[in-house]
């Protein structure tokens, strides 16, 4: 029996499947994907043959089988022509399937589409309303722009049909036509107006949709349709106040879809228009209060109402009502409702900040929701809510959440937390604590800019050096698994190791932590050998150890450091090996070693530029792109630490800020660096004698001054831990055209191959030392000219304002990428005894120019301090730059000053 069955099945399987049902059953019986593929392939072949043989009676079945095959994801385009043939058939069933096939199989670009136009034209004039309906539906789904032009008049005619079924479909066809060929919208203006008067709800919905689309495509249509506001309000009123109407009732609400559509259109019509807004205030209030909120449909309407209230010029009372509805939404148990509430709050947080703040606790609760969609929304909103007054509370909550957050959130969170901390930090201690905690929790998810910023912060807050370095030291004793924390800790210990040692033992979390020279080096060694070390941390540690060699005096420790360096001088990693070898060499220059390794100059302050977070959206993190985008390399980081700018992530603004440092700091840096140069010059002068192993090329005495200083710069950078891009491991090219004194010292391999950005960015600090380098970049020369022209006043830039001891200087520079853009660094200098607060600075430029302003680094200027702000002027016509400035600030005696100043044009060659 079984054998008969199997034989019959074998026979059956060879025959073509005649009906759709048989095909579906055959596919469903397949156990593997391969089996399914073979069934489909065989059937496709059969269908193809049938199509070739022009079987009229099997065409319907074959096309329907083909559409099923298409749904499963197999090619089915060969059925396009058959669909056209079906459409030409007089039978309704054939037509219907034919049009379905056309909608599914034919795309806008295929030639066949032009053939469809003709059938559509015929069927649009068909006597059977359902055939017309089919044609309209097809047109509405696949119309190309040519089709839209050809059939526009037919659709226009059908919009006036007496049949509601046809009218509503024509309404959406008109929309498709307007979308494809926007200039045809005028043909439908009057018809659209009549549609808004239609008594059938179906037609009304499509009419409202059509009008909405026309208003969005052509904003001037808003004016025209604004006249319909009273009509729409009346429709809405009827819907809200009408009692139970079985025809349109959806769970107790009359036609919610229509209400939602009308509310949406009202929103577009009344945006920025007081009169229209006034006209709908009452009805919005009525909808907001009368709609039942127990069911989804009711909430859908309320949601739309809230959006409309927020968007238009509504009364204050109404806005309060709207925010209250959102508050109710937030406490709703249904996650869908909470989602839209968070979504809406996100949109309104900019307008109704105070009102949204009231719901802060619920929003924070949502961070712990089980649903990722909700968490995402809540997180976004939480960051938007942070301000000066709640930064402590919110940051604490967010840090708590950071601990449990999904990894995909972490990187964007650390960036945003550090941004918020920087913007709103009540004091440096808190700021440092927050950053430390963040790094401890998610140090593996920190972008390099964030880390660089943290280190800059530490360097700038000299009063907390001891505290910070102790905290980091204690933290590293506990946990070395978080890369960001390790890097920060290692760097800080290297820089302030002496502070750490001098501080002696200290208490951290009720434990006494012993500090000694050997325990510090021991800790570093354990990290170096530990399981979490990667190349970057190893690089950092080697440099730190080298720095410590001049900070710690214990002889054994010195030996230990030498030993570690020696061990790594055979490292497989070229960069590590290079560092180890160079540092070991440095030990033979004891007279300059401590000078070379002395503390880095305090980097100038700057804020993380906002743009670095905008690119940082959650989506990109989910797909792992955030990693690639993560900005400057460690090289930049280290260069940053030296107080000079780098081209990080192509952000020109940021770069300009850093290239023109504050006056005092620049002086400081210059002094320090000239000192270093002198020292290096000493080496070059007398080094040959001291290190016999590396003979100096005879040409050393006469290299061109520029190249020599350039090379010195590189050498200095190497010594300071600047991570010169890993260079080819080859030995220094002997044929180097400009003799490289450093190569002779064994410090740098091929200094001329080091990245040009490093040369460029390091140069400002050395500007006094190397005048010949001024041509390297326009920005550089600016800094230089400006500093040289105004050296008498010890500031750079051009003074635009100076009253009450408050001075504003402008430092202009041409953008490196775009000559039409001028970046102006505005320096606010406070030479009074007290603090200047509530500083507000506004600027205006002539009409031909465009002005962008970055936020100021602070609105408070300490006595003797300087704050800065960046302006960016786009000046395509290259007209003279003139600025009108409005400045307001409060002096320390409480006197509020409002002032206006003008400046410009800048002197020639200013930028």
């Amino acid at each position: 029996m079984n054998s008969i069955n199997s034989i019959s099945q074998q026979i059956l399987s060879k025959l073509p499947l005649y009906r759709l049902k048989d095909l579906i059953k055959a596919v469903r019986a397949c156990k593997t994907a391969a089996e399914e593929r073979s069934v489909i392939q065989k059937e496709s072949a059969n269908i193809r043959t049938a199509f070739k043989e022009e079987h009229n009676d099997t065409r319907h079945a074959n096309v329907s089988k083909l559409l099923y095959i298409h749904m499963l994801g197999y090619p089915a385009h060969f059925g396009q022509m058959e669909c056209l043939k079906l459409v030409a058939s007089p039978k309704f069933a054939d037509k219907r399937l034919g049009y379905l096939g056309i909608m599914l199989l034919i795309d806008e670009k295929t030639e066949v589409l032009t053939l469809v136009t003709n059938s559509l034209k015929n069927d649009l004039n068909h006597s059977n309303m359902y055939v017309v309906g089919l044609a309209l539906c097809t047109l509405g789904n696949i119309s190309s722009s040519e089709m839209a032009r050809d059939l526009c008049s037919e659709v226009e005619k059908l919009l006036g049909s007496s049949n509601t079924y046809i009218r509503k479909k024509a309404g959406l066809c008109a929309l498709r036509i307007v979308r494809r060929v926007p200039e045809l919208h005028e043909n439908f203006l009057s018809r659209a107006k009549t549609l808004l008067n239609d008594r059938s709800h179906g037609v009304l919905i499509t009419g409202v949709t059509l009008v909405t689309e026309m208003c969005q495509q052509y904003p001037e249509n808003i004016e025209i349709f604004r006249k319909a506001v009273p009509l729409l309000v009346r429709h809405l009123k009827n819907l809200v106040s009408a009692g139970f109407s079985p025809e349109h009732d959806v769970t107790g609400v009359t036609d919610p879809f229509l209400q939602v559509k009308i509310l949406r259109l009202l929103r577009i019509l009344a945006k920025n228009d007081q009169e229209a807004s006034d006209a709908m205030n009452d009805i919005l209030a009525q909808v907001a209060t009368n709609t039942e909120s127990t069911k989804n449909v009711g909430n859908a309407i309320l949601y739309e109402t809230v959006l409309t209230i927020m968007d238009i010029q509504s009364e204050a009372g109404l806005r309060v009502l709207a925010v209250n509805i959102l508050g109710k939404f937030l406490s709703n148990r249904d996650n869908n409702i909470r989602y839209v509430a968070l979504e809406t709050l996100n949109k309104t947080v900019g307008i109704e900040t105070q009102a949204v703040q009231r719901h802060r606790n619920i929003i924070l609760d949502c961070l712990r929701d089980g649903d990722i969609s909700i968490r995402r929304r809540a997180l976004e909103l939480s960051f938007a809510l942070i301000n000066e007054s709640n930064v402590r509370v919110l940051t604490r909550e967010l840090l708590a959440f950071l601990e449990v957050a999904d990894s995909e959130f972490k990187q964007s969170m650390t960036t945003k937390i550090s941004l918020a901390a920087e913007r709103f930090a009540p004091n440096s201690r808190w700021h440092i604590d927050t950053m430390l905690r963040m790094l401890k929790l998610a140090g593996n998810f920190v972008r390099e800019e964030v880390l660089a910023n943290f280190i800059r912060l530490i360097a700038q807050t000299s009063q907390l050096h001891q505290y910070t370095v102790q905290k980091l030291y204690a933290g590293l004793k506990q946990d070395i698994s978080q890369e960001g924390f390790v890097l920060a800790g290692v760097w800080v210990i290297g820089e302030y190791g002496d502070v750490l040692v001098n501080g002696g033992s200290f208490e951290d979390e009720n434990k006494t932590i012993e500090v000694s020279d050997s325990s510090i080096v021991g800790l570093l060694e354990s990290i170096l050998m530990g399981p979490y070390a990667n190349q970057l941390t190893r690089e950092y540690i080697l440099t730190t150890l080298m720095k410590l060699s001049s900070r710690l005096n214990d002889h054994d420790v010195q030996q230990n450091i030498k030993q570690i360096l020696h061990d790594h001088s055979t490292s497989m990693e070229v960069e590590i090996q290079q560092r180890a070898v160079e540092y070991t060499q440095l030990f033979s220059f004891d007279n300059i070693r401590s000078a070379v390794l002395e503390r880095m100059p305090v980097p100038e302050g700057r804020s993380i530029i906002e743009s670095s977070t905008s690119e940082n959206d959650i989506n990109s993190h989910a797909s792992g792109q955030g990693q690639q985008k993560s900005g400057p390399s460690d090289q930049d980081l280290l260069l940053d630490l030296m107080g000079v700018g780098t081209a990080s992530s192509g952000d020109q603004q940021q770069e300009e800020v850093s290239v023109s440092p504050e006056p005092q700091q620049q002086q400081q840096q210059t002094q320090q660096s000239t000192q270093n140069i002198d020292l290096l010059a000493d080496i070059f002068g007398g080094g040959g004698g001291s290190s016999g192993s590396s003979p100096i090329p005879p040409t050393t005495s006469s290299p061109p001054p520029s190249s020599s200083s350039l090379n010195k710069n590189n050498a200095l950078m190497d010594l300071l831990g600047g991570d010169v891009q890993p260079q080819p491991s080859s030995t220094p090219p002997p044929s180097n055209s400009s003799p490289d004194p450093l190569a002779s010292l064994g410090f740098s391999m091929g200094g001329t191959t080091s990245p040009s950005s490093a040369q460029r960015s390091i140069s400002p600090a050395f500007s006094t030392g190397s005048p010949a380098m001024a041509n390297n970049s326009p920005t550089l020369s600016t800094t230089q000219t400006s500093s040289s022209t105004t050296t008498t006043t010890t500031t750079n830039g051009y003074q635009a304002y100076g009253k009450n001891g408050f001075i504003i200087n402008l430092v202009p520079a041409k953008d490196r990428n775009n000559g039409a853009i001028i970046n102006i660094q505005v320096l606010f200098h406070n030479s009074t005894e007290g603090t200047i607060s509530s500083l507000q600075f506004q600027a205006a430029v002539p009409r031909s120019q465009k002005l962008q302003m970055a936020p100021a680094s602070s609105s408070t200027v300490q006595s003797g301090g300087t704050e800065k702000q960046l302006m960016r002027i786009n000046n395509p016509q290259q007209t003279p730059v003139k600025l009108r400035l409005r400045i307001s600030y409060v002096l320390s005696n409480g006197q509020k000053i409002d002032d206006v100043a003008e400046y410009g044009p800048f002197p020639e060659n200013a930028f």
Partner: protein
Amino acid sequence: MIKSVLIFNNHGKPRLIKFYQQIDIATQQALVQEIYSLVSKRPDTVCNFLEGSKLLGGKDTRVIYRHYATLYFVFVVDESESELGILDLIQVFVESLDRCFENVCELDLIFHFDEVHHILSEIVQGGMVLETNMNEIVAAINEMNKAKKKSGAATTGSLSVRASETLRAGFRH
């Protein structure tokens, strides 16, 4: 605008694929699989909205879905549609299917996928909502089926096999 309407079952098998944008077939299948992998992991208590993927058009696209018995009904929409409104629309769609097929279940959709397309085309046209009144939708479908019968095509005959689980069990308002 509604960018696409998808129905697939608990195992990710597509039961209806309708796109209102031009998307090639390989991408369509990839999208179905992607959305399935996102949606199928979510328990029924969480919200019915998801942020759109890169394939669909990024952050402005929303995936809005409902889960009925063995089937997922998914609407992919852009930001101009109300999320809650679309949820209601899915309900209308499913209830219309239920009325047309008399106690609809997955097998109905499998064997009458063309019918499902026709019903959908009475509700959504060109990515915009056409009709939300169930009576109108069902009446139009019935009229057309009559016209179809009159034209002499094979009748749709009732199904011999019926999965016991009908979608109605999953209705929630």
